[in-house]
């Protein structure tokens, strides 16, 4: 059945998150942009308390608990939440405790016992963060094939050595709270990507330290950490997936399934910024007497009208594609191509919309008096993290052409 009706539960999530976005995020948006590396504890505490009260709604870990129920909307709800909170402030959204990308990896690839051990902590009294560490100084998009961080087995332990960079919320996961980081390391450097596995490293583990926090163009409320692993010993059971290289390709593919959930989530977040920008743009124009007339042929439109109509088309079409990707996930159907498609387009769309909004508003758009310039800076990350626009184009192209990564790279 084709339907575009938002279910009541989605509508409720949307309304609730809008209240949070308006009251808890927008008022502090500028402050945390200008005070990079300060931690928005009030927001974090509030989100932790309210999510706990709602039974952990809004986190990537939730879908695990609900897996056995009937028609699910968990992924769709995640998208709605990400969109709305990013409409509030994307940097702060990235500071939401209770299960992010690391938890998503555990959720996608961990055993029941591992899920219990690692994900249970999100229901505790204190807020907890998690993170995913994949990128290394020498390679980003080529990951995980070119992972150099090693995991060597020593009895009932793994010994990890290497360096990870660009770890979102890495500091919050390892230093500020008792969380964990999922570290991608190779158990057999000669096996290429088949030897790569995710490992859970918990806060407080000796040999694992945060060495640097990046200073960025945008999303400044969110910490982006470098992590060094020096003879870092973790329990054998902290490996996600099979410890055997022979079974590896399957284990590896399972791990990559994480991205089928996280890419639409990033797309949804990007579209939250795009919507915020478009709404503010229209509002600012309206205050200055410019109203958008719909229904006209292009020959009768002003330039601003054409820009706005184009923005609405690209924003909404991408949102529907994102919801389709999440709907497929909820239906337990393959969504790899849709996940990459919406990620590609959302990255493009948010960049275009924010760049044009600053341009259209001229001296006002360029001014830090308004959030438009901030969103312009925040937007760009969406075309970079969770796979650049180019990597995701490759994935889409391989799928539609039925090519392997050896045939098209």
């Amino acid at each position: 059945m084709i339907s575009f009706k938002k279910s009541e539960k989605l509508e409720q999530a949307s309304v609730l998150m809008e209240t949070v976005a308006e009251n808890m995020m927008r008022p502090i948006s500028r402050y945390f942009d200008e005070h990079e590396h300060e931690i928005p504890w009030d927001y974090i505490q509030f989100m932790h308390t309210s999510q706990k009260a709602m039974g952990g709604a809004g986190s990537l870990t939730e879908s695990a608990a609900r897996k056995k129920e009937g028609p699910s909307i968990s992924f769709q709800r995640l998208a709605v939440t990400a969109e709305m909170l990013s409409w509030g402030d994307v940097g702060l959204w990235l500071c939401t405790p209770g299960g992010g990308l690391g938890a998503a990896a555990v959720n996608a690839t961990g055993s029941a016992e591992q899920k219990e051990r690692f994900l249970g902590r999100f229901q505790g009294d204190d807020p907890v963060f998690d993170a995913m560490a994949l990128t290394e100084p020498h390679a980003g998009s080529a990951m995980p094939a070119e992972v150099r961080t090693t995991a060597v087995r020593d009895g009932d332990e793994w010994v990890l050595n290497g360096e990870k960079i660009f770890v979102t919320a890495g500091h919050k996961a390892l230093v500020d709270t008792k969380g964990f980081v999922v570290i991608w390391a190779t158990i057999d450097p000669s096996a290429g990507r088949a030897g790569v596995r995710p490992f859970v490293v918990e806060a407080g583990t000796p040999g694992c330290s945060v060495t640097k926090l990046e200073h960025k163009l945008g999303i400044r409320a969110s910490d982006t950490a470098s992590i060094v692993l020096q003879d870092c010993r973790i329990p054998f059971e902290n490996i996600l997936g099979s410890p055997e290289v022979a079974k590896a390709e399957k284990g590896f593919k399972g791990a990559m399934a994480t991205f089928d959930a996280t890419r639409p989530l990033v797309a949804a977040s990007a579209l939250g910024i795009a919507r915020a920008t478009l709404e503010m743009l229209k509002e600012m124009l309206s205050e200055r007497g410019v109203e958008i007339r719909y229904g006209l042929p292009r020959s009768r439109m002003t330039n601003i009208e054409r820009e706005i109509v184009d923005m609405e088309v690209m924003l909404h079409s991408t949102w529907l594609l994102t919801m389709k990707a999440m709907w497929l996930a909820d239906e337990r159907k393959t969504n790899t191509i849709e996940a990459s498609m919406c990620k590609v387009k959302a990255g493009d769309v948010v960049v275009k919309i924010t760049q044009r909004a600053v341009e259209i508003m001229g001296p006002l758009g360029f001014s830090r008096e308004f959030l438009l310039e901030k969103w312009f800076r925040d937007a760009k990350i969406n075309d970079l993290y969770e796979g650049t626009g180019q990597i995701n184009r490759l994935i889409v192209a391989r799928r539609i052409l039925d090519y392997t990564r050896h045939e098209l790279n």
Partner: protein
Amino acid sequence: MYGFEPSDEQRMLMDAAERYAANQLRAAGREADEAGEFPQELIEKGWELGVLQASVPEAYGGFGERSAVTGALAAEAMAWGDLSGTLAVMAPTSYVMPILLGGTEEQKKALIPPVIEADWKPYVAAFVEPSFDFYEGEMQTTAQAKKGKYLLSGEKAYVPFAEQAPAFLVFTMLDGALRAFNVPSDAPGLSVGEREALLGIHALPTYRLKLDDVTLDEDALIGGEGEFDAGEVIASTQVAIAAMAIGLSTGALDYALPYAKEREVWGVPIAQKQSIAFMLAEMAIEIESNRLLVWEAAWKLDEGDPDAARAAYLALSGAADTAMMVTDRAVQTFGGHGYVREHPVEMWMRNGRGIPVMPGLAMV
């Protein structure tokens, strides 16, 4: 709840439309473009799919209920084969749908069955006008009430099959509002001009139509003295054309993909080059996202959503850009071979450019 899968019933109609598109429209499309028309029996076969008939209730000669979503799915599936052919088959929708949506009970009973219950006959709307900034909200064709009659004057363009049409549904301004009149083809003052020569859709014969004080009885005004929701009619045609734009685009991408894998440059298929592969990926992304925009607009029409008009307008805007982008890139994928009429991509590119001027030619 969101849902992105057609129902079984819709799937069946789509399957039939897809077969027709591939075996009839696509097979004959190129030749028809050169010849300037499709064979009548081929149009007849498309008519027998019953897309329009299934949208009309039994009381007016059909066997179903109007669903813009179903109509859009069928239009998309057919347009994958050929745009001119789809417009030909669906030409009577432009006459029937406004009557179904806004006609009085008497008009529906009198005017719809002769179209629906018979073989394909080009009862068509006369909607578009020959001006660069044509806008349906401010048509130049006018109707005036005079002594219990209406007098219509103006000039229409892009009227399909006007030479054969038994009757037209002429859209005009009446007291500042957009209205439609049923005009028999033998009405005095009505004249069919020369066949138009267009950039694309060569297989669809279209004509200018001149109205010089065409005098009509009161009952020719669709909807009579009552309300006539022109916005719904406009949204309906925007969705129909947008759906065809998506079908056209999908056809072009599907045609370009195998060629890109076959054609080699420096010993490897061009599809293995990112410059081509990325182009194709972007085409697929634009099609997929804009398709959903069209489906949603159709769904909003069916739901009676107050936002349907805006949604349909935006959907057409997105689908028209998609059609131009995708068909242009399909030609680009073929390089010089795409410019040669041996392949259909140049034809699709010409047809793609025409999408924004086609509202009025079909409805769902």
